[in-house]
């Protein structure tokens, strides 16, 4: 009896064959892979351009097998706007963390979304600044300890954590906004569907889209990878509810 070899799992063409710099248990790798799989499945690799942020995923261009721009902190949506306006035939995505997108880049993302720029933003929310070593982010939860709120986030002094997709959904311009998570296989499958939908809308030249992905940061949360996924489930899901916040072109779209 001969044994037939069959590949059932391989690296997507849109990812490079290198070891990433991400910490053990960090979910950036999973999110990168979801984006790369969608780009592969839609046959977009040769027309895809990513825009890297400043933060943990600053080196994203080393891991994607596509063209890339590397933006100043928070400005990825402005770069994506400039690029896509000149090359509407290409598929453009920004990949940004919470500090990059909501703190220093709040103005750029709000206006790009409001203009209805035809690119896709993958927004990774891990409730902390990772690259600089665990400082308070606009998405840090109440009482959460970071190096710049060592007694836990005090809402009286810092306001409430920002729910980005809800904030964006207040804009009138048609767009697609969904919050997903990658703390369990079931959620990873759902997250991929959202990423796919966002790229499909872009490809059909329909709208700006943003997928917020709840993510873990075991290193800066001071937890093991397993504890981190549990922490996300217990603490983040209640404040950052998953689901479609706006889908102007989907079933029952609010356009």
């Amino acid at each position, binding site marked *: 009896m001969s044994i037939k070899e069959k590949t059932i799992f391989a690296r997507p063409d849109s990812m490079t064959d290198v070891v990433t710099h991400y910490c053990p248990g960090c979910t950036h790798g999973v999110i990168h892979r979801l984006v790369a799989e969608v780009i592969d499945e839609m046959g977009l690799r*040769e027309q895809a351009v990513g*825009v890297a942020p400043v933060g943990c995923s600053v*080196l994203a261009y080393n891991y994607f097998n596509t*063209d*890339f*721009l590397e933006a*100043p902190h928070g400005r990825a949506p402005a770069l994506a706007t400039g690029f896509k306006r000149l090359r509407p035939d290409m598929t453009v995505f920004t990949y940004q963390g919470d500090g990059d997108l909501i703190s220093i880049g709040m*103005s750029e993302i709000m206006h790009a979304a409001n203009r209805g720029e035809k690119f896709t933003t993958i927004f990774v929310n891990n409730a902390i600044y990772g690259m600089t070593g665990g400082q308070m982010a606009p998405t840090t939860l109440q009482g959460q300890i970071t190096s710049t709120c060592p007694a836990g986030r005090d809402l009286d002094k810092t306001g409430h954590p920002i729910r980005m997709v809800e904030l964006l959904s207040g804009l009138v311009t048609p767009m697609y906004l969904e919050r997903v998570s990658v703390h369990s296989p079931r959620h990873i499958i759902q997250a991929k569907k959202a990423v796919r939908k966002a790229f499909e809308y872009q490809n059909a030249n329909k709208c700006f889209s943003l997928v917020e992905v709840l993510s873990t940061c075991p290193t800066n949360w001071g937890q093991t990878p397993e504890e981190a996924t549990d922490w996300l489930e217990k603490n983040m899901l209640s404040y950052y509810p998953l689901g479609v916040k706006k889908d102007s072109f989907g079933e029952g779209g609010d356009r």
Partner: protein
Amino acid sequence: MAKVLMKGNEAIAEAAIKAGAKNYFCYPITPQTEVAEYLAKRMPEVGGVFLQGESELAVANMLFGAAATGKRVFTTSSSPGISLMQEAISYMAGAELPTVIVNIMRGGPGLGGILPAQSDYFQSVKGGGHGDYRLLVLAPSTIQEAVDLMMLSFHLADKYRNPVMMIGDGMIGQMMEPVEFPDKFEEDELPEKDWAITGAKGRKPKVAKSLFLDPHALEDNSWKLHAKYEEMKKHEIRFEKYKMSDKNEIMLVAYGTMARICQTAIDHLESEGISVGLFRPITLFPFPLQQIQDEAVKKNIKKVLVIEMSTAQMMEDVERAILGKKQIDFYGRTGGIVPSPEEVVNKIKGMVAKKAKSKKTAAKKTSKSKKKA
């Protein structure tokens, strides 16, 4: 093409289109808003991209993304707006992306005023953003020259893969003059844009970036940029001389609108028998250091006078050119005040009179001492 009467801001806008730059990002700010207003109408006519961004910060970063496509892109702004653009300008210099940025200068610092000034010399020439980089900086003194230099800016940006800045005081933007556009912008052949981000089709992925975490790689990149700036110094120095001769007693150094005012003053002084010449740098980086020194050291030149609409900024480069070999004087008005030709005439007459007086005193002293002897 026949001459047309145009406002500086509009002429600059049209010149860009003539140079094949049909991608413009802007944010309104006085005194250059007419560029945006003109292009809002004009870009759709030529099938170009016009986009008003939410801030100069965003606009300069849009320019960054747009420049990465390899197409000709540009923005225009004025002093406080240019300050906000410095982040992206530094990144574009680091990533070697060709762009053209026009600064129609108003008085500063801070919100300053809205009237013409030349007080952004340091910011433009010495690097307004962070890091080891230079911009190629051009300074027109007429609307026609603004048209010519605007077109040239795109060529130079592509030639060196570097941001080019054209600076003019508010007068350059607001004044109307007859200008002529070429039927076709003739330019030398340029290197292929093999760096452009066009999608990884049939080739390895490309990245437009300025990040080099390895210090050796960053140092290599900085020296590579430095070599490029040295090439600019060899090939791109531009200047003009006005009525410079071996009869000149005083040599003026001025740029932009200020240089034109100096020309009027020089003509007037000539009619009174005072011979003055003007050296006008057109490129502020690279700066004509040697050329200024060569003129200044000539025996007939008694003094060099730098005149600016600022509190002495280009002055430092002229000092660097002359290296103490001649005495340098400065005259400046700033904050939006444009010196009149009379002011320049009076300043020079004062210098000549003082010199004559000191000569007389010296002569008296000599005769006295002779008497004593």
